[in-house]
Protein backbone atom coordinates (compact mmCIF):
# COMPACT_ATOMS: atom_id res chain seq x y z
CA UNK A 1 0.00 0.00 0.00
CA UNK A 2 1.81 3.05 -1.31
CA UNK A 3 -0.77 5.42 0.16
CA UNK A 4 -0.47 4.06 3.67
CA UNK A 5 3.26 4.59 3.61
CA UNK A 6 2.99 8.18 2.53
CA UNK A 7 0.39 9.03 5.08
CA UNK A 8 2.47 7.40 7.80
CA UNK A 9 5.46 9.48 6.82
CA UNK A 10 3.29 12.53 6.72
CA UNK A 11 1.93 11.84 10.14
CA UNK A 12 5.46 11.44 11.48
CA UNK A 13 6.43 14.70 9.84
CA UNK A 14 3.40 16.48 11.31
CA UNK A 15 4.18 15.15 14.78
CA UNK A 16 7.80 16.19 14.46
CA UNK A 17 6.96 19.72 13.38
CA UNK A 18 4.40 20.03 16.13
CA UNK A 19 6.95 18.90 18.70
CA UNK A 20 9.49 21.39 17.36
CA UNK A 21 6.98 24.20 17.71
CA UNK A 22 6.07 23.11 21.22
CA UNK A 23 9.71 23.19 22.16
CA UNK A 24 10.17 26.72 20.82
CA UNK A 25 7.07 27.89 22.63
CA UNK A 26 8.25 26.27 25.85
CA UNK A 27 11.72 27.80 25.54
CA UNK A 28 10.31 31.28 24.89
CA UNK A 29 7.87 31.08 27.77
CA UNK A 30 10.49 29.69 30.11
CA UNK A 31 12.92 32.47 29.23
CA UNK A 32 10.39 35.21 29.77
CA UNK A 33 9.11 33.67 32.98
CA UNK A 34 12.64 33.17 34.29
CA UNK A 35 13.60 36.76 33.55
CA UNK A 36 10.54 38.21 35.18
CA UNK A 37 10.71 35.94 38.23
CA UNK A 38 14.43 36.44 38.69
CA UNK A 39 14.12 40.21 38.66
CA UNK A 40 11.06 40.23 40.88
CA UNK A 41 12.50 37.77 43.40
CA UNK A 42 15.74 39.69 43.60
CA UNK A 43 14.17 43.13 43.55
CA UNK A 44 10.85 43.07 45.37
CA UNK A 45 12.21 42.36 48.88
CA UNK A 46 14.20 45.58 48.74
CA UNK A 47 11.30 47.78 47.85
CA UNK A 48 9.94 49.62 50.84
CA UNK A 49 8.00 52.81 51.35
CA UNK A 50 11.07 54.71 52.47
CA UNK A 51 12.93 53.42 49.40
CA UNK A 52 10.18 54.68 47.11
CA UNK A 53 9.55 57.98 48.82
CA UNK A 54 13.01 58.98 50.00
CA UNK A 55 15.92 60.68 48.37
CA UNK A 56 19.48 59.46 48.52
CA UNK A 57 21.97 61.05 50.82
CA UNK A 58 25.66 60.27 50.92
CA UNK A 59 25.85 61.64 54.45
CA UNK A 60 23.34 59.29 56.02
CA UNK A 61 23.94 56.49 53.53
CA UNK A 62 20.21 56.51 52.78
CA UNK A 63 19.05 55.32 49.38
CA UNK A 64 15.72 56.45 47.95
CA UNK A 65 14.54 56.65 44.40
CA UNK A 66 11.77 59.23 44.51
CA UNK A 67 13.87 61.75 42.54
CA UNK A 68 14.50 59.13 39.87
CA UNK A 69 10.83 58.25 39.64
CA UNK A 70 9.92 61.90 39.28
CA UNK A 71 12.69 62.48 36.74
CA UNK A 72 11.31 59.60 34.71
CA UNK A 73 7.80 61.01 34.83
CA UNK A 74 9.03 64.48 33.85
CA UNK A 75 11.05 63.21 30.95
CA UNK A 76 8.23 60.99 29.67
CA UNK A 77 5.73 63.86 29.87
CA UNK A 78 8.06 66.39 28.27
CA UNK A 79 9.07 64.05 25.48
CA UNK A 80 5.49 62.99 24.69
CA UNK A 81 4.26 66.55 24.79
CA UNK A 82 6.65 67.42 21.97
CA UNK A 83 6.83 64.19 20.03
CA UNK A 84 3.09 63.53 19.71
CA UNK A 85 2.06 66.75 17.95
CA UNK A 86 5.20 66.66 15.80
CA UNK A 87 4.90 63.02 14.84
CA UNK A 88 1.15 63.02 14.25
CA UNK A 89 1.37 66.30 12.32
CA UNK A 90 4.15 64.98 10.13
CA UNK A 91 2.22 61.78 9.51
CA UNK A 92 -0.91 63.68 8.50
CA UNK A 93 1.06 65.87 6.15
CA UNK A 94 2.86 62.97 4.54
CA UNK A 95 -0.21 60.77 4.03
CA UNK A 96 -2.90 63.36 3.33
CA UNK A 97 -1.24 66.39 1.82
CA UNK A 98 2.16 65.62 0.32
CA UNK A 99 1.86 65.34 -3.44
CA UNK A 100 5.25 63.94 -4.36
CA UNK A 101 5.02 60.26 -3.49
CA UNK A 102 8.71 59.70 -4.22
CA UNK A 103 9.81 62.24 -1.64
CA UNK A 104 7.35 60.70 0.84
CA UNK A 105 8.89 57.30 0.15
CA UNK A 106 12.37 58.65 0.82
CA UNK A 107 11.23 60.26 4.08
CA UNK A 108 9.54 57.05 5.21
CA UNK A 109 12.65 55.09 4.42
CA UNK A 110 14.82 57.60 6.28
CA UNK A 111 12.47 57.45 9.28
CA UNK A 112 12.69 53.69 9.36
CA UNK A 113 16.47 53.80 9.19
CA UNK A 114 16.55 56.42 11.95
CA UNK A 115 14.51 54.25 14.28
CA UNK A 116 17.08 51.50 13.92
CA UNK A 117 20.13 53.59 14.84
CA UNK A 118 21.82 52.72 18.16
CA UNK A 119 20.57 55.10 20.79
CA UNK A 120 24.02 56.13 21.95
CA UNK A 121 24.39 58.00 18.67
CA UNK A 122 21.29 60.00 19.52
CA UNK A 123 22.89 60.68 22.88
CA UNK A 124 26.05 61.96 21.26
CA UNK A 125 24.18 64.21 18.86
CA UNK A 126 21.86 65.37 21.64
CA UNK A 127 24.81 66.27 23.82
CA UNK A 128 26.51 68.27 21.10
CA UNK A 129 23.37 69.96 19.82
CA UNK A 130 21.10 70.50 22.82
CA UNK A 131 23.55 70.60 25.72
CA UNK A 132 26.36 72.49 24.06
CA UNK A 133 25.14 74.26 20.94
CA UNK A 134 21.79 75.31 22.41
CA UNK A 135 23.44 75.72 25.79
CA UNK A 136 20.90 73.68 27.75
CA UNK A 137 23.69 72.08 29.77
CA UNK A 138 23.16 68.54 31.00
CA UNK A 139 19.45 68.64 31.83
CA UNK A 140 16.28 66.61 31.71
CA UNK A 141 15.01 68.93 28.98
CA UNK A 142 18.00 68.16 26.79
CA UNK A 143 17.40 64.50 27.50
CA UNK A 144 13.72 64.78 26.67
CA UNK A 145 14.46 66.55 23.39
CA UNK A 146 16.97 63.88 22.48
CA UNK A 147 14.29 61.29 23.14
CA UNK A 148 11.93 63.30 20.97
CA UNK A 149 14.25 62.92 18.00
CA UNK A 150 14.68 59.27 18.81
CA UNK A 151 10.96 58.54 19.01
CA UNK A 152 9.74 60.85 16.27
CA UNK A 153 10.15 58.21 13.54
CA UNK A 154 8.22 55.63 15.57
CA UNK A 155 5.29 57.92 16.33
CA UNK A 156 5.24 59.17 12.75
CA UNK A 157 5.35 55.72 11.19
CA UNK A 158 2.72 54.11 13.42
CA UNK A 159 0.39 57.05 12.90
CA UNK A 160 1.00 56.94 9.16
CA UNK A 161 0.28 53.26 8.97
CA UNK A 162 -2.99 53.68 10.79
CA UNK A 163 -3.94 56.69 8.66
CA UNK A 164 -3.51 54.44 5.65
CA UNK A 165 -6.01 51.95 7.07
CA UNK A 166 -8.82 54.53 7.03
CA UNK A 167 -10.75 53.56 3.89
CA UNK A 168 -10.61 55.90 0.93
CA UNK A 169 -14.41 55.66 0.71
CA UNK A 170 -14.76 57.61 3.99
CA UNK A 171 -12.69 60.44 2.55
CA UNK A 172 -14.69 60.34 -0.67
CA UNK A 173 -17.91 60.45 1.31
CA UNK A 174 -16.78 63.52 3.24
CA UNK A 175 -15.53 65.32 0.13
CA UNK A 176 -18.76 64.44 -1.64
CA UNK A 177 -20.68 66.36 1.02
CA UNK A 178 -18.58 69.43 0.45
CA UNK A 179 -16.22 69.03 3.38
CA UNK A 180 -12.88 70.78 3.06
CA UNK A 181 -9.68 68.81 3.43
CA UNK A 182 -8.93 69.69 7.05
CA UNK A 183 -12.50 69.08 8.15
CA UNK A 184 -12.43 65.72 6.42
CA UNK A 185 -9.18 64.83 8.21
CA UNK A 186 -10.34 66.04 11.60
CA UNK A 187 -13.74 64.40 11.58
CA UNK A 188 -13.27 61.25 9.54
CA UNK A 189 -9.61 60.31 9.34
CA UNK A 190 -8.20 61.23 12.76
CA UNK A 191 -10.86 59.43 14.82
CA UNK A 192 -10.06 56.33 12.81
CA UNK A 193 -6.37 56.39 13.63
CA UNK A 194 -6.47 56.97 17.39
CA UNK A 195 -5.32 53.42 17.96
CA UNK A 196 -2.23 54.05 15.83
CA UNK A 197 -1.36 57.14 17.81
CA UNK A 198 -1.80 55.16 21.01
CA UNK A 199 0.44 52.40 19.72
CA UNK A 200 3.07 55.00 18.91
CA UNK A 201 2.66 56.36 22.41
CA UNK A 202 3.16 52.98 24.09
CA UNK A 203 6.20 52.19 22.01
CA UNK A 204 7.67 55.60 22.81
CA UNK A 205 7.01 55.41 26.53
CA UNK A 206 8.47 51.93 26.58
CA UNK A 207 11.54 53.15 24.78
CA UNK A 208 11.90 56.17 27.07
CA UNK A 209 11.61 54.02 30.17
CA UNK A 210 14.21 51.66 28.85
CA UNK A 211 16.60 54.25 27.50
CA UNK A 212 19.90 54.76 29.23
CA UNK A 213 22.59 55.33 26.63
CA UNK A 214 21.04 58.45 25.08
CA UNK A 215 20.35 59.92 28.51
CA UNK A 216 23.77 59.31 30.05
CA UNK A 217 25.16 62.08 27.84
CA UNK A 218 22.27 64.46 27.93
CA UNK A 219 20.27 64.23 31.15
CA UNK A 220 22.96 63.33 33.62
CA UNK A 221 23.02 61.37 36.87
CA UNK A 222 21.82 63.70 39.61
CA UNK A 223 19.39 62.45 42.26
CA UNK A 224 18.15 65.80 43.52
CA UNK A 225 14.46 66.22 44.27
CA UNK A 226 12.82 68.89 42.06
CA UNK A 227 9.45 70.11 40.89
CA UNK A 228 8.78 69.68 37.17
CA UNK A 229 9.99 73.15 36.12
CA UNK A 230 13.25 73.05 38.03
CA UNK A 231 13.58 69.38 37.29
CA UNK A 232 13.54 69.88 33.53
CA UNK A 233 16.25 72.51 33.66
CA UNK A 234 18.59 70.56 35.90
CA UNK A 235 20.49 67.36 35.55
CA UNK A 236 18.74 64.21 36.72
CA UNK A 237 18.78 60.45 36.35
CA UNK A 238 15.76 58.50 35.19
CA UNK A 239 15.08 55.11 36.75
CA UNK A 240 17.02 53.27 34.07
CA UNK A 241 20.02 55.56 34.34
CA UNK A 242 19.85 55.29 38.12
CA UNK A 243 19.83 51.52 37.75
CA UNK A 244 22.97 51.74 35.68
CA UNK A 245 24.64 54.07 38.14
CA UNK A 246 23.76 52.03 41.22
CA UNK A 247 24.86 48.77 39.65
CA UNK A 248 27.94 49.93 37.80
CA UNK A 249 29.37 52.77 39.85
CA UNK A 250 28.24 51.96 43.35
CA UNK A 251 27.90 48.21 43.24
CA UNK A 252 24.46 48.39 44.86
CA UNK A 253 22.95 45.43 43.08
CA UNK A 254 20.01 45.13 45.43
CA UNK A 255 18.99 48.68 44.61
CA UNK A 256 19.48 47.99 40.92
CA UNK A 257 17.23 44.95 41.07
CA UNK A 258 14.62 46.85 43.03
CA UNK A 259 14.59 49.52 40.34
CA UNK A 260 14.42 46.84 37.67
CA UNK A 261 11.37 45.34 39.34
CA UNK A 262 9.72 48.75 39.51
CA UNK A 263 10.48 49.38 35.85
CA UNK A 264 8.93 46.10 34.89
CA UNK A 265 5.77 46.78 36.84
CA UNK A 266 5.64 50.28 35.33
CA UNK A 267 5.92 48.92 31.81
CA UNK A 268 3.13 46.50 32.50
CA UNK A 269 0.92 49.25 33.90
CA UNK A 270 1.58 51.48 30.89
CA UNK A 271 0.80 48.73 28.43
CA UNK A 272 -2.38 47.81 30.22
CA UNK A 273 -3.55 51.39 30.43
CA UNK A 274 -2.82 51.88 26.73
CA UNK A 275 -4.92 48.85 25.91
CA UNK A 276 -7.65 50.24 28.12
CA UNK A 277 -7.53 53.67 26.45
CA UNK A 278 -7.71 51.96 23.08
CA UNK A 279 -10.81 50.04 24.15
CA UNK A 280 -12.51 53.16 25.45
CA UNK A 281 -11.98 54.90 22.12
CA UNK A 282 -13.14 51.85 20.22
CA UNK A 283 -16.29 51.70 22.33
CA UNK A 284 -16.99 55.37 21.91
CA UNK A 285 -16.76 54.94 18.17
CA UNK A 286 -19.20 52.05 18.19
CA UNK A 287 -22.00 53.77 20.03
Amino acid sequence: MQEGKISKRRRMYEALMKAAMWISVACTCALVAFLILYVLVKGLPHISWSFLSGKPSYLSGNIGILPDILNTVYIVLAALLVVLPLGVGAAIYLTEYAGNKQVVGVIEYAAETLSGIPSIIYGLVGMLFFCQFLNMKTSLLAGALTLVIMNLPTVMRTTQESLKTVPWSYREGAFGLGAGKWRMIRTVVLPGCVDGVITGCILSVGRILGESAALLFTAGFAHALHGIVNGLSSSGATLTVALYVYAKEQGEFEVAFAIAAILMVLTLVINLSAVWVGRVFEKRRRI
Partner: protein
Amino acid sequence: MSDIVTVENMCLWYGEHQALKNITIKIPQKSITAFIGPSGCGKSTFLKSLNRMNDLIQGVKITGDVKYNGKNIYDPSVDVNELRREIGMVFQKPNPFPMSIYDNIAYGPRTHGIRNKAKLDEIVEQSLKDAAIWEEVKDRLKKNALGLSGGQQQRICIARALAVKPKVLLMDEPTSALDPISTSKIEELTVKLKEEYTIIIVTHNMQQAVRISDQTAFFLLGELVEYGNTETLFSTPKDQRTEDYITGRFG
Protein backbone atom coordinates in the same frame (compact mmCIF):
# COMPACT_ATOMS: atom_id res chain seq x y z
CA MET B 1 -37.74 71.86 -18.99
CA SER B 2 -34.49 73.72 -18.58
CA ASP B 3 -31.07 72.10 -18.53
CA ILE B 4 -29.22 72.18 -15.23
CA VAL B 5 -25.97 70.57 -16.38
CA THR B 6 -24.55 71.21 -19.83
CA VAL B 7 -21.30 69.79 -21.10
CA GLU B 8 -19.62 70.79 -24.31
CA ASN B 9 -16.68 69.15 -26.05
CA MET B 10 -15.33 67.81 -22.82
CA CYS B 11 -12.22 65.63 -22.89
CA LEU B 12 -10.51 64.01 -19.93
CA TRP B 13 -7.06 62.46 -19.62
CA TYR B 14 -5.58 60.28 -16.94
CA GLY B 15 -1.96 61.16 -17.62
CA GLU B 16 -1.43 60.11 -21.24
CA HIS B 17 -4.56 58.03 -21.48
CA GLN B 18 -7.61 59.78 -22.86
CA ALA B 19 -10.60 58.47 -20.92
CA LEU B 20 -13.31 60.76 -22.32
CA LYS B 21 -13.55 62.09 -25.85
CA ASN B 22 -15.52 65.17 -26.84
CA ILE B 23 -18.50 64.65 -24.62
CA THR B 24 -21.43 66.97 -25.30
CA ILE B 25 -24.59 66.48 -23.32
CA LYS B 26 -27.45 68.50 -21.83
CA ILE B 27 -29.13 67.20 -18.71
CA PRO B 28 -32.62 68.52 -17.90
CA GLN B 29 -33.48 69.28 -14.30
CA LYS B 30 -35.82 67.24 -12.12
CA SER B 31 -35.49 64.11 -14.17
CA ILE B 32 -33.49 60.91 -14.06
CA THR B 33 -30.67 60.49 -16.52
CA ALA B 34 -29.00 57.10 -16.77
CA PHE B 35 -25.46 56.49 -18.01
CA ILE B 36 -24.98 53.01 -19.39
CA GLY B 37 -22.13 51.21 -21.11
CA PRO B 38 -19.64 48.41 -20.58
CA SER B 39 -17.01 48.54 -17.81
CA GLY B 40 -14.26 51.02 -18.48
CA CYS B 41 -16.29 53.06 -20.96
CA GLY B 42 -15.85 56.24 -18.93
CA LYS B 43 -19.36 56.61 -17.54
CA SER B 44 -18.24 56.72 -13.90
CA THR B 45 -15.35 58.99 -14.75
CA PHE B 46 -17.75 61.33 -16.47
CA LEU B 47 -20.14 61.26 -13.52
CA LYS B 48 -17.35 62.12 -11.11
CA SER B 49 -16.20 65.01 -13.25
CA LEU B 50 -19.62 66.65 -12.77
CA ASN B 51 -18.87 67.52 -9.14
CA ARG B 52 -15.11 67.52 -9.51
CA MET B 53 -14.50 64.35 -7.51
CA ASN B 54 -11.82 63.68 -10.12
CA ASP B 55 -9.80 66.49 -8.57
CA LEU B 56 -8.81 63.95 -5.92
CA ILE B 57 -7.01 61.79 -8.46
CA GLN B 58 -3.57 62.86 -9.55
CA GLY B 59 -2.79 63.51 -13.18
CA VAL B 60 -6.32 64.21 -14.37
CA LYS B 61 -6.60 66.85 -17.07
CA ILE B 62 -9.88 68.18 -18.38
CA THR B 63 -10.64 70.38 -21.39
CA GLY B 64 -13.93 71.73 -22.67
CA ASP B 65 -16.88 73.16 -20.79
CA VAL B 66 -18.74 71.59 -17.88
CA LYS B 67 -21.46 73.97 -16.84
CA TYR B 68 -23.78 73.83 -13.89
CA ASN B 69 -26.57 76.41 -14.03
CA GLY B 70 -24.66 78.13 -16.81
CA LYS B 71 -21.42 78.48 -14.85
CA ASN B 72 -18.26 76.58 -15.72
CA ILE B 73 -17.50 74.45 -12.68
CA TYR B 74 -13.81 74.22 -13.54
CA ASP B 75 -13.47 78.01 -13.38
CA PRO B 76 -10.85 78.97 -10.75
CA SER B 77 -13.41 81.15 -8.97
CA VAL B 78 -15.64 78.17 -8.17
CA ASP B 79 -15.66 77.00 -4.55
CA VAL B 80 -15.37 73.23 -4.91
CA ASN B 81 -16.91 72.56 -1.50
CA GLU B 82 -19.92 74.68 -2.34
CA LEU B 83 -20.20 72.94 -5.72
CA ARG B 84 -20.22 69.53 -4.05
CA ARG B 85 -22.88 70.73 -1.65
CA GLU B 86 -25.10 71.55 -4.62
CA ILE B 87 -24.15 68.45 -6.57
CA GLY B 88 -24.22 65.60 -4.10
CA MET B 89 -23.00 62.08 -4.62
CA VAL B 90 -23.94 58.54 -3.68
CA PHE B 91 -21.21 55.98 -4.17
CA GLN B 92 -21.13 52.46 -5.51
CA LYS B 93 -20.41 50.85 -2.17
CA PRO B 94 -22.37 52.20 0.78
CA ASN B 95 -19.87 54.31 2.71
CA PRO B 96 -21.47 55.61 5.89
CA PHE B 97 -18.95 57.06 8.33
CA PRO B 98 -18.16 54.97 11.41
CA MET B 99 -20.37 57.16 13.59
CA SER B 100 -23.96 57.18 14.75
CA ILE B 101 -26.78 57.37 12.21
CA TYR B 102 -27.60 60.83 13.50
CA ASP B 103 -24.03 62.08 13.14
CA ASN B 104 -23.82 60.64 9.65
CA ILE B 105 -26.82 62.64 8.47
CA ALA B 106 -25.79 65.74 10.43
CA TYR B 107 -22.26 65.61 9.00
CA GLY B 108 -23.07 67.64 5.90
CA PRO B 109 -25.18 70.34 7.59
CA ARG B 110 -22.55 70.68 10.34
CA THR B 111 -19.86 70.99 7.69
CA HIS B 112 -21.77 73.89 6.22
CA GLY B 113 -22.12 75.65 9.54
CA ILE B 114 -25.44 74.54 11.04
CA ARG B 115 -24.93 74.08 14.80
CA ASN B 116 -28.43 74.60 16.17
CA LYS B 117 -29.60 71.34 17.74
CA ALA B 118 -33.29 71.78 16.94
CA LYS B 119 -32.50 72.68 13.36
CA LEU B 120 -30.20 69.67 13.00
CA ASP B 121 -32.84 67.36 14.48
CA GLU B 122 -35.31 68.63 11.94
CA ILE B 123 -32.90 68.16 9.01
CA VAL B 124 -31.96 64.66 10.15
CA GLU B 125 -35.58 63.58 10.46
CA GLN B 126 -36.60 65.11 7.13
CA SER B 127 -33.61 63.64 5.28
CA LEU B 128 -34.23 60.18 6.69
CA LYS B 129 -37.89 60.45 5.73
CA ASP B 130 -36.98 61.58 2.23
CA ALA B 131 -34.67 58.61 1.91
CA ALA B 132 -37.47 56.28 3.05
CA ILE B 133 -35.56 54.91 6.02
CA TRP B 134 -36.93 56.97 8.92
CA GLU B 135 -39.31 54.27 10.10
CA GLU B 136 -36.52 51.70 10.24
CA VAL B 137 -34.02 53.76 12.20
CA LYS B 138 -35.95 56.34 14.19
CA ASP B 139 -35.49 54.43 17.44
CA ARG B 140 -31.77 53.94 17.05
CA LEU B 141 -30.42 57.20 15.74
CA LYS B 142 -27.56 57.03 18.24
CA LYS B 143 -26.44 53.60 17.07
CA ASN B 144 -23.48 53.21 14.75
CA ALA B 145 -24.52 53.29 11.11
CA LEU B 146 -22.16 50.44 10.29
CA GLY B 147 -24.50 48.10 12.14
CA LEU B 148 -27.16 48.47 9.44
CA SER B 149 -27.63 46.19 6.45
CA GLY B 150 -26.08 47.13 3.10
CA GLY B 151 -29.37 48.37 1.68
CA GLN B 152 -30.09 50.43 4.77
CA GLN B 153 -26.57 51.83 4.71
CA GLN B 154 -27.03 52.94 1.13
CA ARG B 155 -30.26 54.75 2.03
CA ILE B 156 -28.42 56.35 4.96
CA CYS B 157 -25.89 57.57 2.41
CA ILE B 158 -28.69 58.94 0.26
CA ALA B 159 -30.20 60.65 3.31
CA ARG B 160 -26.77 62.02 4.16
CA ALA B 161 -26.45 63.45 0.68
CA LEU B 162 -29.95 64.94 0.83
CA ALA B 163 -29.26 66.61 4.18
CA VAL B 164 -27.20 69.36 2.57
CA LYS B 165 -30.10 70.13 0.22
CA PRO B 166 -28.37 69.53 -3.09
CA LYS B 167 -29.91 70.33 -6.46
CA VAL B 168 -28.34 67.42 -8.29
CA LEU B 169 -27.67 63.92 -7.02
CA LEU B 170 -25.02 61.85 -8.74
CA MET B 171 -25.38 58.13 -8.14
CA ASP B 172 -22.54 55.84 -9.11
CA GLU B 173 -24.04 52.36 -9.49
CA PRO B 174 -25.79 52.75 -6.15
CA THR B 175 -27.37 49.31 -6.22
CA SER B 176 -24.59 47.16 -7.63
CA ALA B 177 -23.57 45.97 -4.15
CA LEU B 178 -27.14 45.33 -2.97
CA ASP B 179 -29.66 42.53 -2.97
CA PRO B 180 -32.78 42.67 -5.22
CA ILE B 181 -35.14 43.87 -2.48
CA SER B 182 -32.85 46.69 -1.41
CA THR B 183 -32.32 47.50 -5.07
CA SER B 184 -36.01 47.91 -5.75
CA LYS B 185 -36.37 50.09 -2.66
CA ILE B 186 -33.61 52.37 -3.87
CA GLU B 187 -35.15 52.46 -7.34
CA GLU B 188 -38.55 53.47 -5.96
CA LEU B 189 -36.85 56.09 -3.86
CA THR B 190 -34.96 57.45 -6.83
CA VAL B 191 -38.13 57.86 -8.85
CA LYS B 192 -39.74 59.70 -5.95
CA LEU B 193 -36.73 61.94 -5.52
CA LYS B 194 -36.84 63.27 -9.06
CA GLU B 195 -39.78 65.47 -8.10
CA GLU B 196 -37.31 67.63 -6.26
CA TYR B 197 -33.87 66.69 -7.46
CA THR B 198 -32.06 66.15 -10.70
CA ILE B 199 -30.70 62.63 -10.66
CA ILE B 200 -27.88 61.28 -12.74
CA ILE B 201 -27.29 57.59 -12.26
CA VAL B 202 -24.61 55.30 -13.59
CA THR B 203 -25.85 51.76 -13.93
CA HIS B 204 -24.63 48.44 -15.20
CA ASN B 205 -28.13 47.18 -15.23
CA MET B 206 -30.04 48.04 -18.38
CA GLN B 207 -33.39 47.00 -16.95
CA GLN B 208 -32.76 49.47 -14.19
CA ALA B 209 -32.15 52.23 -16.71
CA VAL B 210 -35.38 51.33 -18.51
CA ARG B 211 -37.37 51.13 -15.27
CA ILE B 212 -36.40 54.43 -13.75
CA SER B 213 -34.75 56.83 -16.16
CA ASP B 214 -36.17 59.50 -18.42
CA GLN B 215 -33.09 59.91 -20.57
CA THR B 216 -30.30 57.46 -21.22
CA ALA B 217 -26.78 58.07 -22.43
CA PHE B 218 -24.76 55.22 -23.87
CA PHE B 219 -21.00 55.43 -23.45
CA LEU B 220 -18.43 53.32 -25.26
CA LEU B 221 -14.65 53.59 -25.10
CA GLY B 222 -14.77 57.12 -23.76
CA GLU B 223 -17.28 58.38 -26.28
CA LEU B 224 -20.88 59.34 -25.81
CA VAL B 225 -22.38 57.20 -28.56
CA GLU B 226 -26.02 58.00 -28.16
CA TYR B 227 -28.16 60.10 -25.87
CA GLY B 228 -31.89 60.54 -25.79
CA ASN B 229 -35.24 59.61 -24.38
CA THR B 230 -34.91 56.26 -22.63
CA GLU B 231 -37.83 54.60 -24.40
CA THR B 232 -36.66 55.74 -27.81
CA LEU B 233 -33.08 54.75 -27.17
CA PHE B 234 -34.00 51.26 -26.11
CA SER B 235 -36.72 50.65 -28.71
CA THR B 236 -35.22 52.33 -31.75
CA PRO B 237 -31.54 53.01 -31.23
CA LYS B 238 -30.00 55.14 -33.95
CA ASP B 239 -26.47 53.84 -33.66
CA GLN B 240 -25.53 50.29 -34.55
CA ARG B 241 -23.22 50.08 -31.50
CA THR B 242 -26.06 51.05 -29.17
CA GLU B 243 -28.24 48.39 -30.66
CA ASP B 244 -25.52 45.78 -30.32
CA TYR B 245 -25.01 46.69 -26.68
CA ILE B 246 -28.63 46.81 -25.58
CA THR B 247 -29.43 43.57 -27.33
CA GLY B 248 -26.59 41.98 -25.42
CA ARG B 249 -24.19 41.37 -28.27
CA PHE B 250 -21.26 42.63 -26.18
CA GLY B 251 -20.54 44.23 -22.84
